[in-house]
């Protein structure tokens, strides 16, 4: 299982460690971007679990992040301490994710993509319209950070610690019988069923756990940006997360780390192009996918397999 090997875990730990010492040489802007990277990576790891490992095409992930972010901001405003809001956000997203999983029991592929897309839009409408609860379009300002982690550097380290915990947990999960069941589900659901995998339960779990990670990302997003409104959690963000997972390499443990890195940094690198930088970003994504449809990690594996003459290790086995 190339996607969850010890080496890929080591690489991700190395990345996190590197990120945690970087603030020494960084301006506040760099620290913010790194924090954003950590948060996006957590969300993308969640989507990678649902999509990359369990094969469920989901465009609902922005909504899960939104649910986590609003849960944290609203409870936090009522004085609930951060660990409790984090737990609440995780559980809420887990529950909602479980429910969103039900359509996946009936339909797959682009049908599932459309259902989850519709769900994301519905959540956006609720966040915007139910102003009595969510503050509506005016959003929620001045979201407090946990007192011990109020400075940019401290908050970055908190985000990185969360990323570390999530990485270890997911790494463990993927090597557990659960993880193997997820992959069996993606590869051949009928065969999985005949091997005794409870397809129904594991499909729902794939959604619920992926969603819970989205909720965690949201719980860290709200205090990071310190202001939330409904529009960042609309369809566009779901698509961005999907891009991160696919660019990095869906089904690879390291994929979300790289995908999020590129999503955060590539527009930054291209900014010298001024008015056309986003057009070039999009073209770069297309080129990347043309060269390596299985993402960056798929490409590196393919190149190595060719050079070393070894049998190509598939992303999926």
């Amino acid at each position, binding site marked *: *299982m*190339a996607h969850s*090997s*010890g*080496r*890929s875990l*080591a*690489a*991700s730990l*190395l*990345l996190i460690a*590197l*990120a945690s010492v*970087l603030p020494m*040489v*960084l*301006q*506040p*802007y*760099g620290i*913010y*971007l*790194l924090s*954003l990277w950590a948060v996006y990576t957590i969300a993308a790891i969640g989507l990678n679990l649902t999509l990359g490992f369990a094969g469920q095409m989901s465009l609902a992930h922005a909504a899960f992040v939104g649910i986590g972010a609003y849960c944290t901001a609203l409870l936090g405003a009522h004085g609930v301490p951060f660990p409790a809001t984090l737990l609440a956000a995780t559980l809420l997203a887990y529950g909602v994710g479980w429910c969103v999983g039900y359509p996946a029991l009936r339909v797959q592929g682009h049908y599932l993509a459309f259902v989850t897309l519709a769900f994301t839009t519905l959540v956006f409408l609720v966040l*915007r319209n139910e102003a009595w609860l969510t503050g509506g*379009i*005016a*959003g929620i300002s*001045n979201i407090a950070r946990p007192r011990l982690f109020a400075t940019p550097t401290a908050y970055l380290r908190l985000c990185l610690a969360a990323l570390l915990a999530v990485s270890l947990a997911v790494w463990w999960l993927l090597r557990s019988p659960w993880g*193997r069941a997820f992959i*069996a589900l993606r*590869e051949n659901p009928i065969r999985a069923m005949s091997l005794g995998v409870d397809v129904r339960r594991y499909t729902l779990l794939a959604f619920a756990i992926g969603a819970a990670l989205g909720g965690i990302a949201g719980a860290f*997003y709200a205090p990071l*940006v*310190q*202001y*939330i*409104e409904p*529009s*960042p959690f609309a369809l566009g963000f779901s698509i961005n997360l999907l891009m991160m997972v696919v660019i990095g390499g869906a089904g*690879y*443990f*390291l994929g979300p*780390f*790289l995908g999020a*890195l590129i999503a955060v*940094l590539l527009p*930054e*690198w291209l*900014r010298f192009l*001024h*008015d056309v930088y*986003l057009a070039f970003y999009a073209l770069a994504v297309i080129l990347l996918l043309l060269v390596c449809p299985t993402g960056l*990690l798929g490409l*590196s*594996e393919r190149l*190595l397999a060719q050079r070393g003459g070894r049998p190509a*290790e*598939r992303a999926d*086995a």
Partner: protein
Amino acid sequence: MTAKASGQGVHRSAVLRCVGLGVALAVSLALPGTGRAASDSIQLADVVELSGSGASVGTLWRDAVRMAADELNAKGGILGHPIAITDYDTQTNPSTSRAMIQKALDAHPYAVLGPIYSGSVKVDEPLTQAAGVAEFTGAAAKDITHMGSAYIFRTAFSTESSEPRVARYLVGDLHAKKIAVLWVNDDAGRSTRDALVDALGKLGATVVADVPSEAGQVSFAADVLKARRAQPDAIFVYLHEEENARFLKEARREGIKVPLVGDTTLMDAQTIKLAGADANGVVGHAMLTPNAPIPEVQDFVKRFEARYHVVPDHNAIQGYMAVWMVKAATEKMGKPDAQHLAATLHGMTIDPATEPGILMKTTVLPNGDMDRQSFMVEVQDGRARVIKVLPMLGG
């Protein structure tokens, strides 16, 4: 394709590659800090919507800011210091806006111009406040200047100042008692609608239909029908320009005869361009208009059209004014003093007689709101005409 749980790895070079990427990350993030400007120029950070749904708004603002800077630099800058503008694109997204304002602040700008969408402003405000850098925003939402920052300045009316003027026109001039309110359900539309409904209530008028629509909505048949069924004396419309055009077309088709009243966007050049003859007869309040019967404004419009081949809208006028507000306050201080820029601006009145670039007499109120004349505008024969000049609130 079996799910065998062997530990054969992503190879060492993949690990190395990740580390390599990490190093690249470090280098690229460290770079912005080295971009400190030449010390004698005045750095203005233009943090504005250049992509996403706010792109059409932010682009005109940016163009006007550039024009103001070029014009000032041609005259030797501010107190001999040239102006340098750096653009930052918020992508009309608060989290990107926060990233961009941080990037801008890391370079220690003299002042921040923008953003215009209130969500992006609200996320930036605590940061400019903490850094003590004056921020000039085009946002109209009420709460922007109620957040306790002494560094936020509007270049436009808040909805709290403009909508009572619209309400007075509806109730006082048109004698309308029953009013239908059509609004786009986003940041600007919501705050405009709330302020107007509030102001109408105070004047004793009734809102007989309260119809939100979606940005990008294609058909306005249902909206017009709802307004028509409520049998209003007048219909107030606050939509974006494209939706204005679609609404007006539909209203004409359904034979709506009652006055159509708007605020700024309903009568602006873009709406008229898109709606054509259907825009004739609409009337409304405009905090800024390129048709203002003021020589300085007319002159600005000519220069802007010559340079960019489009009619400047209120956003362009605001961006232009923001640069001149910085100039006026700096000259009042006698030297570019970023720390005292905000304090100098509070309570300051800038008059085009001495500072033609400000275009219109502008008073900065203590909370960062501003006071200016504004206009009642009517579209006649495909042209917006000012039918009445409304005085400054402070007389």
